[in-house]
């Protein structure tokens, strides 16, 4: 008998909270991206848990698409980080304050 789905759901919630805390506190753009990956993984874990609970493979198909979108997001995001680093020689988001009113 498998462990109850609630355990995995709580684990996913905790992982999401840790990722959200990291996005809110870290200032390096690279580490903020890693924390966004943590939050995405928390969501995929929740999707897989519900797929098992409801016996619906649609949840797993959604996770498949989430992974594709995450790969595209990281490609473009790291491209932007590299482009900004060439201009500013820094990946700290605190220094990107040109649009401050």
């Amino acid at each position: 008998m498998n462990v109850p789905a609630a355990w995995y759901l709580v684990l996913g919630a905790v992982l999401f909270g840790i990722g959200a805390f990291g996005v809110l506190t870290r200032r390096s753009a690279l580490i903020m991206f890693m924390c966004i990956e943590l939050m995405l993984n928390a969501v995929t874990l929740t999707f897989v848990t519900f797929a098992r609970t409801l016996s619906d493979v649609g949840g797993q198909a959604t996770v498949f698409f989430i992974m594709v979108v995450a790969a595209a997001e990281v490609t473009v995001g790291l491209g932007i980080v590299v482009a900004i680093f060439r201009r500013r020689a820094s990946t700290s988001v605190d220094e990107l304050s040109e649009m401050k009113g």
Partner: protein
Amino acid sequence: MIAIAYGWPDVLVFATAALLIVVGALGVIATRHPVHAALSLIMTLFGVAVAFVAQSADFLAAVEIIVYAGAIVVLFLFVIMFLGVDRDEGTRIEPLVGQRTLAALGAVITVAGLITLMARSHWVTGATSVSTAGVPLAHGSGNVRQLGTAVFTTYLFAFEATAALLIIAVVGAVVLARREQRRDAEDEATSSPSDAPTDLEGSER
């Protein structure tokens, strides 16, 4: 008592996955060194893969390792090495007063809200799936067959859309890199005065 109710192997697998996930995630947000954060991220991803296998998502576990730990983290490490930012970020200083306290408060409220939502709502409605017609999820190669059938029939349009998305992402990344190079070359050739203030700001810091 818990182990008797659910069986030792499953509880052990869950404990292993939870330990890997939580320790890795804490490592990502706590380490000052970006390379260490990337390695901690790999640990979390392996933990998520273990949780996937335990919940009969074998194909997704393999994809998690190959795509996330194999490609995305390597991309992270490549950018860290390429930019040469593998130095400490300096987490001791806190530019915004009370930022960490407020962030921790927000994260705790989010987690508590999610857990309360899950505890109070009846999300198992007894509804069976459309794509597999109520057939329970299979392990191993059966899982690949089920997922492949769903992706190439029910979710075919979304699958084709991801192809367009990947092409756009690749072209976007190439354009981002190329345009920046050309502008740098122009700046070096003409040394436009609009760059002077930013350089001054940089040197002041």
